[in-house]
């Protein structure tokens, strides 16, 4: 499955996912930006370690958790993408010591 922008106008925003530079449009959610960039695996669930990605896109399912600027368990569908965001896969459960 691929995602295509219905509106290609707007200002570009640069951010990274797992060290990879990506581009999005200002005003998009982080989840939409990642999906548009072809990212499907957002996190590895602590329950079974399987890969997961966004399901509801409205803050309910918690499947789109990513690590954003070193903060774990952030809901990508509830955040707007910002210039310079450093985004990583959420690997398993958060380590509260980190």
């Amino acid at each position, binding site marked *: 499955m691929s995602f295509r922008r219905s509106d290609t106008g707007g200002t570009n925003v640069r951010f990274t996912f797992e060290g990879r530079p990506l581009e999005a449009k200002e005003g998009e959610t982080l989840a939409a930006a990642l999906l548009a960039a072809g990212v499907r695996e957002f996190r590895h669930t602590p329950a079974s370690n399987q890969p997961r990605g966004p399901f509801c896109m409205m803050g309910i399912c918690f499947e789109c*958790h990513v690590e954003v600027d070193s903060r774990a*368990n952030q809901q990508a569908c509830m955040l707007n993408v910002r210039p310079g965001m450093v985004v990583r896969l959420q690997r*398993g*459960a958060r380590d*509260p*010591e980190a």
Partner: protein
Amino acid sequence: MSGGGPVADVIVIGGGLVGAALAYGLSREGQAVTLLDEGDNAFRASRGNFGLVWVQGKGSRSPAYARWTRASADLWPAFATQLLEETAIDVGYRKPGGLTLCMSEAEMESRCTLLQGLRTSLHEYDFQMLDRLELRELLPAVGETVVGASFCPHDGHVSPLLLLRALHQAILDRVAYRPGEEVIAIERRDGLFHVRTRRGTRAAIQLVLAAGLGNAKLAPRVGLQAPVVPVRGQILVTERLQPFLPLPTMQVRQTEVGTVMLGDSHEEVGFDVSTTVAASRDITRRAIAQFPFLGDVQMIRTWGALRVMTADGLPIYEQSQTHPGAYIVTCHSGVTLAAVHAKQLAPAIARGDLPPELDAFCAERFEECHVVQAQ
């Protein structure tokens, strides 16, 4: 639509943890069971449970309850294994022992006195008071203001939702499960109980009322009484965290998938399952005092659920004298008592006679209370 259908050995009214555990146990005794469950609009205590299999401190004023609780905790390991074998569902039961954290020396003392009393009346009742240092060795994440804790090896925890699912899965092909059937009327005719719902009338030789708060209205129809009231508990659950709490406490429990449940509020607000900022604040404040790092952890959900409470907090187990074969079963510890309900209470009901150890749980005790209060 009466009298036409097959006659069951037992109709169980209520498909929550109490009713499902009884239907499970009765069907294992070879009984033909019909299980009537209400709809999704029912106040389902089983869906909002914290998930403790808890012994310590229970029954300080009722040795019978302390013994019954302990019996269930002792049965739990084999019960969980049996469910796993029958359903392939791991209900997440663990028995690492449990802790009650104490926030002052006075709390430590009263806790110790309470548990010593229980040990005296029950004999084999293990517990240990942990001082500040011993507690920190066990739980490095514990806060500075925690003075110590009581540890009891008989305690454990389980996923209440998986338990409910496993029980329903286990009875799927051996119990006539009827969801969405709210009971309208109960009649005793020709030596049988006829239970009418909007979908028809079901008949059985025996009848078990396990409808939680619904028992209050059902019990008088078969000469029993169930003076139960709703006591709301609110629970918050956090994002998933790496394991930090290897054993459950009364108020904070880390589930096997990493989320942390925070709870133990008590409010008498009638049939209202809403959540409030005030209770959330009290619960989180206490949890943060106990485990300071939780202050920086995200909450992902909160909910309210209604405990099924009697005036003395104890269960009611009784067979009707006016309607023999009709039983009332109600308690607020459907998780802890699930094992003893399935393995001891259900076989007793199948035999048609409750054991003398349950005499203490007759509802008559509330009449005596009233008399005493009136004087």
